[in-house]
């Protein structure tokens, strides 16, 4: 159980969705995105939506968490809706002054909104049910065939792990530095944009200096612990595909197929 990790937006739980291999979940998410983009009409989105609702119910993630992930994209949703509503199609169903709304525009607008919402809600379900470290491991494993093409898969995943490890440390450090500069009378809250940007210098410079110092010390510590790249490394955390992973992938594939069936109707 990794229930205390607060980095990212992991929502601790022990549902079947949580228990799936991270590679399975990443693959399912990719298939899910394909599902949404393959849909040609509103009806084609139905399998994706049903699939999402089922996964969501099984995952046990509260509804408010899903809404929370949608909040930042509300402006984008509104913008897309308005754009499509007014500027698409010819079959006018409502007209006032220079504004005209067409039937096609209305349909397309709804189609786009549903698609965006389903996309964001679905992908956030991945991060709600998978810890960042599992995501990293999953990605490293999925990308490992690229190693043959000299793509630095291990290095990338090591970088991600270290970044995840140091995010809380650096957040804490930022707040400490801010307090220290405020204690010296730094004014971080008032003034125009330029003044505020200037006020950040006393925060950012110490933060960078400290990040470099940390990086240097960490490199030394890693070397002392026999780190010499990804070659010959074993892993404490091994990933194993289980029956449930295969079944989940098959179900997802069925949903995807149904999209194509609906499209051809």
């Amino acid at each position, binding site marked *: 159980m990794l229930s205390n990790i607060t980095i990212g937006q992991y929502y601790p739980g022990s549902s079947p969705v949580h228990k799936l291999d991270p590679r399975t979940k990443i693959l399912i998410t990719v298939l899910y995105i394909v599902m949404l983009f393959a849909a040609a009409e509103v009806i084609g989105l139905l399998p994706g939506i049903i699939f999402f609702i089922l996964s969501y119910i099984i995952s046990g993630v509260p509804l408010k968490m899903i809404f929370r992930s949608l909040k930042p994209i509300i402006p984008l949703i509104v913008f897309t809706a308005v754009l499509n509503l007014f500027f698409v199609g010819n079959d006018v169903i409502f007209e006032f002054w220079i504004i005209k709304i067409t039937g096609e525009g209305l349909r397309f607008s709804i189609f786009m909104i549903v698609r965006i919402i389903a996309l964001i809600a679905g992908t956030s379900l991945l991060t709600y049910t998978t810890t960042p470290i599992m995501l990293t491991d999953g990605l490293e494993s999925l990308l490992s065939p690229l190693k043959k093409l000299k793509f630095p898969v291990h290095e990338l995943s090591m970088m991600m792990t270290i970044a995840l490890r140091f995010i809380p440390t650096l957040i804490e450090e930022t707040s400490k530095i801010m307090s220290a500069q405020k204690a010296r009378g730094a004014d971080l809250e008032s003034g125009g944009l330029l003044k505020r940007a200037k006020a950040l210098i006393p925060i950012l410079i110490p933060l960078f200096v400290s990040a470099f110092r940390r990086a240097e010390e960490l490199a030394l*510590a890693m070397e002392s612990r026999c*780190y010499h790249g990804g070659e010959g490394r074993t*892993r*404490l955390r091994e990933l194993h595909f289980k029956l449930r992973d295969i079944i989940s992938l098959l179900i997802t594939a069925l949903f995807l197929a149904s999209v194509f069936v609906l499209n051809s109707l």
Partner: protein
Amino acid sequence: METIINAENISYFYDEETKKYVFKDLSLKVEKGSFVAVLGHNGSGKSTLAKHFNAILQPTEGKVYVNSMDTLDEDKLLEIRKDVGMVFQNPDNQIVATIVEDDVAFAPENLGVPHDELVIRVRDALKAVSMENFSDKAPHQLSGGQKQRVAIAGIIAMQPDCIVLDEATAMLDPKGRREVMEVVRRLNREMGITVVFITHYMEEAANADRVVVMDSGKIVLDGSPKEVFTQVETLKSIGLDVPQVTYLSYLLRGTKLELPKDILTASECADAILKLLEEKK
């Protein structure tokens, strides 16, 4: 006694141009299974010396041997670092992974230890530092002392012969320092791991079998804690502390209440005073 670390007439400078030596012609042998404290103030060269013990730094002149392997030998680098593990000062800057058990596994993973054995090693290492109940925690949820214990577990998991602690207690509160000291003493006694403990706290050095005092790149004192701490004048002159009771005994020299020179602990001191007072009655 078998020697694990042998520094023979080593010299070191950071800057090729100025050739300002951190130390020159320094020799030190560390015996297997011993607990050696290296005491000195900042800039005395003690940390630079420590970094020679696992081939992070290499001497500009002279040789350092770890288990008879020359630290200049590139091919032996991994083996040397596996034999002599190093714990650093800042607990935040040496933990690599986001979860305690993953971090403890880091070194053996690098060494290619098979998965089944990894699991055992991680469990045992966490047990050895009494952190087995924290295996699934994130590093930022731990106190300073706990983080340093995790760092020590990360070294133990390599199954080293020796641990070098490079001012590993300098940033900890008294509780954290006590925790680390207890763990290190236990590792030394129960698992026979050689400990090199670099510090500027004399209370900590008093726990060792042997205290080496460094000043401006030279070894000025080398002996048992009792032998070293009775040299009150030498220690004070290079800006180091002595235990308060040792200082008391020093101040009382030449008075009618002359205490033994080599007292280190409060109870030793109280016993000596009680005995003397008894005699005076």
